């Protein structure tokens, strides 16, 4: 049953997977087990995205299914799930830029690949990055930006992290629309990633995971 569930979610079978969720809850199964299976299903979605089999529509749709499943399961859970995470990443779209399509894909892919992600959203002031890094002690920061104003905002954010004495404790990756290796040099980031898969690979490398 749990194998079916994982595949139904990964295959985006909305009606079937929701029906099965209800059946499992009705039969008194532990909600945490269902959430664990959901995580496995989402891992497969992430893998298919990385392999070029799934695209943005599938990511959005699977996210919606996960939301529905979680909402059904939530009332049946008393203790919080404990998942082992590879590491913590703070991400956000830099100040002056309100685009988040790419940011949310990176969020999704880091999450399904085992990272704890703190997504600060769009138009994030440099101080907010600094505060969040201090609070979470995240070793990795991901700066997103779609437009050219992001070049300066990224540079200023990296400088703010440096000024706060955090720069040598963290790795900074950047990406999005007009971002490339030139901007990496300009902003003094550690790496530029061209897509969400690159973000995952960089994060894994930096935490020493395989």
């Amino acid at each position, binding site marked *: 049953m749990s194998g079916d569930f994982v595949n139904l979610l990964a295959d985006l079978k909305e009606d079937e997977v929701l029906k099965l969720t209800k059946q499992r809850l009705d039969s008194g199964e532990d909600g945490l087990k269902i959430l664990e299976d959901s995580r496995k299903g989402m891992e497969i979605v992430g893998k298919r995205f990385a392999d070029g089999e799934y695209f943005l529509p599938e990511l*959005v*749709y699977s996210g919606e299914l996960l939301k529905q499943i979680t909402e059904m399961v939530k009332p049946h859970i008393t203790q919080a799930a404990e998942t082992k995470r590879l590491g913590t990443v703070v991400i956000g779209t830099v100040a002056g830029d309100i685009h988040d399509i790419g940011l949310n894909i990176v969020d999704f892919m880091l999450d399904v690949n085992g990272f704890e992600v703190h997504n600060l959203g769009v138009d994030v002031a440099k101080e907010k990055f600094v505060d969040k890094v201090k609070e979470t002690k995240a070793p990795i920061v991901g700066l997103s930006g779609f437009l*050219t104003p992001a070049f300066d905002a990224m540079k200023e954010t990296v400088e703010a992290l440096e000024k706060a004495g955090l720069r040598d404790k963290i790795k900074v990756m950047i990406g999005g629309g007009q971002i490339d290796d030139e901007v990496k040099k300009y902003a003094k980031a550690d790496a530029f990633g061209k897509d969400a898969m690159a973000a995952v690979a960089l994060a894994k490398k930096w935490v020493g995971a395989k």
Partner: protein
Amino acid sequence: MAKEWAELTPAEKREERFKRWLSPQGVTFSSPKAEKGYKARVTRFIKAFQLKEPDRVPCILPASNFAAYYAGTDLRTVMYDYDKLSQAWLKFFHDFEDDLDTFIPPALVPPAKSLEAVDYQLYRWPGHGISGDTTSYQCAEAEYMKPDEYDALIRDPSDFWLRTYMPRVFGALKGFPQLPALTSFEEIAIQSFVPFGMPEVQDGFKALMEAGTESLKWLAAVGKVAGEASAAGMPGIMSGFAKAPFDTLGDTLRGTRGIMMDVFQRPDKVHEAMDKIAALAIDSAINAANASAAPIVMMPLHKGADGFMSDKQYATFYWPAFKRVIMALVDEGILPLLFAEGSYNTRFEYIKELPKGATAWWFDQTDMARAKKELGDRICIMGNVPTSLMMTGTPQEVKEHCRKLIEVCGKGGGYILSGGAQIDKGPAENMHAMMAAAKEYGVYKK
């Protein structure tokens, strides 16, 4: 006797429109030299579009709000102060005149006071939703159309805009849902005027009038710049905008999340809505092209880029309605200029379906060498000096990058040197270096 317009083939119509572009109505050139310069520039572009060799590779400098910063002001200031807007663009124009093949007047810098008058929600601009020193205005994507509103849009787009969509994107029109459906206005108005008496509705109309008054002031400033540039012999190369129907739905109606869900949950509605939107896009683009000299309509492309959707999704949802818009324009002799944001490396087979010499493709991060090789005998290609290089590189690096692009893409004609996207701020020397490369390396030997 000349053939009637309707009897002409699309290629003949295009030639006809090119001729009109070369001898534009209503333009008085300031000197014979200006007129000669105009014709030389337009000919340069036309030949590139026709996949022939011009005198040299034409160049479009990637300046979007660049003029504002070049003139020492900023976007926020010129969005509110139209005198400063025209001054900045004229300064840029005169300082760069010898280095321009085309020039875009500040018609894409919207009047902020009009936007404020209607409490515009769809965009953020410097000082209004984003920091005052931001160099661009940006679309605030959201679900402005709900999933159960497809039928309303499909049944009557005008009514949907007026009473559902506009009250959401214009805060000042929040009373408009109280308006009667104008499509069923009474023969003898008994109740129909009542909503127009409601204070909230009247406030909406007052806001629109204020936005209109403000827009006319702005238009005068833009017109001053446009008039001066065209008298000096500087052509524009775009007469209007259109979008792929999937992008219209996904960008400003349903939002990215909404449209991606709809692909799974209500695919038939998506298709029906795109049919409606395609027809509207076609009419509006043809009207825009008829109203100005350059027979070129720019289409910025978003959600069909590499990585956004699968080949099957592109073939099913994106391409058919998009191609219909392209072909309707091509059939009218208008040249669609497709601006493929991001990269389009996986979509070449679709581009190959389009008739030869009928479209131009402006690439942002697409592989230009491959595009030239696989598409160069079919479409004029444009692009793609990186914005990062233009903003952070040296003039030597810019010139060298342009030289390589020209060598790869310029062969045999059909290439326009341009940016991958546009920049707002950056060293003026890099702009000059780009044109210097076109002049030095882009000359075709006769």
